């Protein structure tokens, strides 16, 4: 069992999302940085989709009430286990009674805790993700609060080659990402596929879309990211019919400044869509903090497929190499 000693709002139990219920208006929820959660799970020998905890606000303190193996991935939150500092992207055994403290990340936005066997909350509509707006899933259908006790699944105790644990190479060191000829060194580059209303935008707007940079505003959260920058306009702003919205959709409201819909976004809407961020780059956006500059680069479906393949290979390599450094303790 994991006890939440202290937590700010907006931290919740998530897995890789809830799919199959769009007909009810239920969106996918799930970890904003799926790569981080999947990597942590796989390093522990879990299925990639077991539930972990997503942390968006800090500091957080947890107490473990059982011996269990954990993985901490995503943004480097300078974790300490009792008094011992842990490197980021680290996998280690914790002992009952130990306290884990997570601090505000200096870079990145969201950190993930995976545990061997997963957070054992009930599966609701096929997933353990928290659907905060609709009040179900995850832990009691809501973000975590001090005093919450999260059940962990019983399972074989794991042993690592080194008692200090082992590390996972963070994905930004491995996954190549997009290239944008106008990008400054710190710009986030998001690879996109043009969407159904792309051709409705005027030439100046399409040029700006391909070249300009936007800033992530503070009105950016699990529902979506609001960007500040060049205003995009359609040639003939007709009324839109309402359509399905998925994570990654870049909507352009009348103000002209884009909104990127994300995990907890509305599942339908009526703003025109100029493009959609490829699945493989959503984790990068999840780690972009307000103030970050970003640019869009249009890619092909083949490019997007190559990105998915690259990501799948990274996760498979993590799973395989970690399995060599990990064993189940007999009799535990």
């Amino acid at each position, binding site marked *: 069992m994991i006890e939440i000693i202290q937590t700010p709002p907006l931290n919740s139990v998530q897995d890789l999302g809830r799919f*199959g219920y769009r007909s009810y208006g239920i969106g996918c929820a799930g970890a904003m940085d799926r790569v981080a959660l999947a990597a942590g799970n796989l390093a522990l020998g879990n299925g990639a989709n077991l539930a972990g905890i997503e942390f968006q606000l800090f500091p957080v303190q947890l107490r473990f009430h059982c011996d269990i193996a954990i993985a901490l991935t995503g943004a480097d939150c300078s974790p300490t286990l009792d008094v011992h500092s842990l490197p980021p992207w680290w996998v280690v055994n914790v002992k009952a009674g130990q306290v884990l403290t997570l601090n505000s990340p200096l870079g990145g936005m969201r950190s993930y805790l995976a545990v061997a066997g997963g957070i054992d909350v009930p599966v609701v509509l096929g997933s353990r993700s928290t659907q905060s707006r609709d009040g179900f899933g995850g832990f009691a259908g809501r973000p975590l609060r001090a005093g919450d006790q999260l059940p962990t699944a019983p399972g074989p105790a794991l042993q690592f080659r080194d008692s200090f644990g082992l590390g996972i190479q963070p994905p930004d060191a491995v996954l190549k990402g997009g290239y944008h000829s106008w990008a400054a060194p710190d710009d986030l580059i998001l690879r996109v*596929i043009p969407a159904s209303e792309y051709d409705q935008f005027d030439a100046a707007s399409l040029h700006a879309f391909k070249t300009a940079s936007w800033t992530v505003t503070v009105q950016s959260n699990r529902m979506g990211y609001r960007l500040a920058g060049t205003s995009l306009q359609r040639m003939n702003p007709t009324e839109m*019919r309402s359509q399905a919205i998925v994570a990654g959709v870049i909507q352009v409201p009348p103000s002209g400044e884009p909104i990127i819909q994300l995990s907890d976004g509305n599942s339908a809407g009526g703003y025109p869509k100029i493009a959609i961020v490829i699945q493989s780059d959503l984790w990068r956006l999840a780690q972009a903090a307000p103030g970050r500059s970003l640019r869009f680069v249009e890619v092909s479906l083949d490019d997007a497929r190559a990105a998915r393949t690259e990501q799948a290979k990274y996760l498979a390599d993590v799973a395989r190499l970690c399995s060599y450094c990990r064993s189940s303790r007999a009799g535990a």
Partner: protein
Amino acid sequence: MSNGITILEQPRVSYCGDHGLLLEAEGDLALPTQERIWAVNEVVLGWPGVLDTQPGMNSLLVLIQTDQHDPVEYHDRLLRAWGDSQSGRRAGKLLEVGVVYGGEGGGDLPDVARFHGVDIAEIVQLHSAAEYTIFAPGTGPGFGYLFGLDPRLFIPRRKVPVMRKVGGTVSIAGAQAILGGPKHPNAAATAPTGWHVIGRAHDVPVPFDIARDPMSIVSLGDRVRFRIERIER
């Protein structure tokens, strides 16, 4: 600048990022067209590799399991399925709700009346006379997007969203109408909206309850009527 609605002459299938496809029907919103959308939806749900689908107003989103399949495999097949589809009446149920039009709960009613240059009674009459059909799921679990708004009531979405009290909202925008469910206990009292709230259905039933079987009290093709409780000026 036109505030009309784009009407396609031909159906088209475009890609929704790298994990989905969007089918858009030709022609204007119409019940027979949407019946075909529902029919294609049923067909597509039976295809291997489909993760989820979602009808929209004259559209259908198809999401693919991209660890095993690629959206390109479905492009032509989806267009063909549309070509093969036929309309057909669904025997849906009828939901009737009483509405207090205008007043504090329907604060945008006077503006809608002004936009059309008529008295609010005229707006209320046109809105409540129609029978609406649930065409597509909405922005969350609820009563979905309603078709059937009298063309004389068409009014563009707001350019700048405004904050409006939630709970039983009766709203219109573009050519569409919506009915809001009761306020969720955890929800904020107000929410931003680009729609025009013209009334309030104080006794609207809870549309979706995860503990209930069936979870949703309405389905695509069901109909909604609004009954005038009173008009507040």
